[in-house]
């Protein structure tokens, strides 16, 4: 599904990703963990096509196509979704209109007819239940006046509407209390299938109690320095990052 090879990326001339490789197969959930400033959010941004980041080396293949060659909207049309760490408020653009526009553009890209208005509304009702999002929020301007938790739930709701093949959750757990965290996690779990994959970027192990990953990777200084199964996350929770980072630093120096 996603094949990242030796990816290097920089922003404002500063290299953040320094040769990152990762392979995600259909149906898998991969967790990316790591201390602040290790490059977690940069990875999410580069994959989603944020223009401020410049890829200087490496390749990213998504479903057999060159992801880095695509504009941000084309990536979404191909089935990639980024749940933002800080969802943007857009006054005046209603959630519903925006989602219908997005959904229909994606359908058009896949040679499908626009969605019927009735089916669309039914879908909104159905998918908003998934994250217990009040449908009234769906009619408001995008994220405007939403609480932190509502914004994050709205991200998962949008993901449920667009039904991507790869969902990237960029610190979706940050700023959530435990109840909201459970709701968000349960939403993700319901979207899980053999066909689609998730990349869960998180600072804490907490979220992984509810979204069980197949693989856990530690990102440090722009590279994945250790990979393991879900027990690695528990180990990190217990021991912190130092026991992995220290030997690496000695090795480098």
């Amino acid at each position, binding site marked *: 599904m996603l094949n990242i090879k030796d990816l290097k990326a920089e922003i404002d001339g500063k290299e953040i990703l320094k040769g990152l490789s990762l392979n995600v197969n259909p149906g898998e959930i991969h967790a990316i963990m790591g201390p602040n400033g290790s490059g977690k959010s940069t990875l999410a941004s580069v994959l989603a096509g944020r*223009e401020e980041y410049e890829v200087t080396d490496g390749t990213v293949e998504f479903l057999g196509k060159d992801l880095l060659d695509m504009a*941000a*909207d084309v990536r979404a049309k191909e089935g990639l979704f980024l749940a933002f760490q800080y969802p*943007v408020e*857009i006054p*005046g*653009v209603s959630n519903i*209109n*925006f989602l219908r526009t997005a959904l229909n553009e994606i359908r058009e890209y896949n040679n499908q007819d626009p969605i019927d208005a009735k089916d669309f509304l039914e879908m909104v009702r159905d998918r908003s239940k998934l994250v217990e999002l009040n449908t009234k929020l769906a009619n408001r301007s*995008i994220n405007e006046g939403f609480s932190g938790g509502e914004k994050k739930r709205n991200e998962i709701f949008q993901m449920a509407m667009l039904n991507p093949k790869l969902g990237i959750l960029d610190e979706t757990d940050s700023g959530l209390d435990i109840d909201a965290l459970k709701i968000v996690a349960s939403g993700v779990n319901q979207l899980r299938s053999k066909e689609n994959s998730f990349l869960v970027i998180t600072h804490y192990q907490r979220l992984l109690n509810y979204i069980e990953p197949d693989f856990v990777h530690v990102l440090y200084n722009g590279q994945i320095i250790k990979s393991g199964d879900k027990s690695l996350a528990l180990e990190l929770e217990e021991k912190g990052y130092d026991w992995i980072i220290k030997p690496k630093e000695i090795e480098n120096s």
Partner: protein
Amino acid sequence: MSEDRIALVKGEDRLLKILEKQGASYSQRISSIEAWKKCPIPSRKDEYWKYTRVAPLLNRSYDVVLDNKPFTGSITKDEDAYTLIFVDGHFAPELSDSITEKGVEIGNLDAKPNLGLELKDFTNSKGDYFTLLNNSFYLDGPAIKIQDNCELTKALHIVHVLSESDRLLNVRGSIELGKNCNAKVVERWVSQSANDNLINTVMNLVVGNDSSLEFTKIQAIGKENNLISQEFALQESDSILRINTISLEGKLIRNNCNVRLQGMGSECFLNGLFMGRDNQHIDNHTFVDHAVPHCQSNELYKGVMDDHSKGVFNGKVIVQRDAQKTNAFQYNGNILLSQNAQIYSKPELEIYADDVKCSHGSTTGQLDKEAMFYLQSRGISAKRARQLMVYAFAKEVLEKISLPAIREELDRYLIDRYQIVLDT
């Protein structure tokens, strides 16, 4: 200087004869014409005209006296509104609705000169060129007078149809509300393959005690026509005035919106949306004179400039020494959609009272990049994302218009306009 000037008005002699027939006001016309002839053409040296060059419009001549051909086009009317139609500046009674409402007099100045109001220019401009030109040569225009405690039960649409080219149209109008009245008036322009016209309108508005007037201007005058549009509005105690200026299409559009709050407790709302493309030039000047205490003014102007278009917003507010407890708010937000588009935004506050709340804000920029990326990350193309953002930006102004039919019509216009951008 007047000697060198190309005769702006073709057939002035003939025009004077027509004006002479009107009798009483002829001497005023003559003194106006004298003042106008002495008044230099506005140039960039005048602060008031710094960003808008009108000389190219004035260094040529126009037909003024009309030998109107019978009008053959068709005009769609709003069934839920009264409609007055003017063709090339002249009232067309056969196309217009006859309106019978208690205490409401509606007509045109050519037929009912007494219905008009004498212009009170409170702007201290010592005779603006276009005001003088209008004073000198206006022939016709709408006049509405509402008696105390009466109202217009339906909105009144004043539709100006342009069917001829190379005309100078000096349109004069007035709307006078007595005490405790209510009226909603829409002024719009329809161009039927008319080009190179210069339209120069002056509207007198008087809003009496406890009255409410909403005056909405929809300016889509055709790509090759020019419009200078002025209001002089006087507000009495506890009155509410809303002026919505929606500038959509025209080669050069200049609005001078002047309001004097002269009765305590009065409030005005000046809303503007101007959207430029190609080489359009749209200039909005507002002037609010807070002459007495306890009044409030609210201004919201938004500009969206594309291609090589140029927009101007200049909002002047004077709070006079006695006008304590004044609230004056002004906001001008602009979006530039092209590298070559320009905006000049200038607030001017002159405050002589000490117990007032005044604020002004101005922002000009491109569309929010973070929001653009958010939309694109959901599969929406850059073009469509841009449309959604511009639509949302402009819509805030449309929501200030109280007439649902007009709001919906403009909403459709926005949707159409930005789909056109998508298709090209």
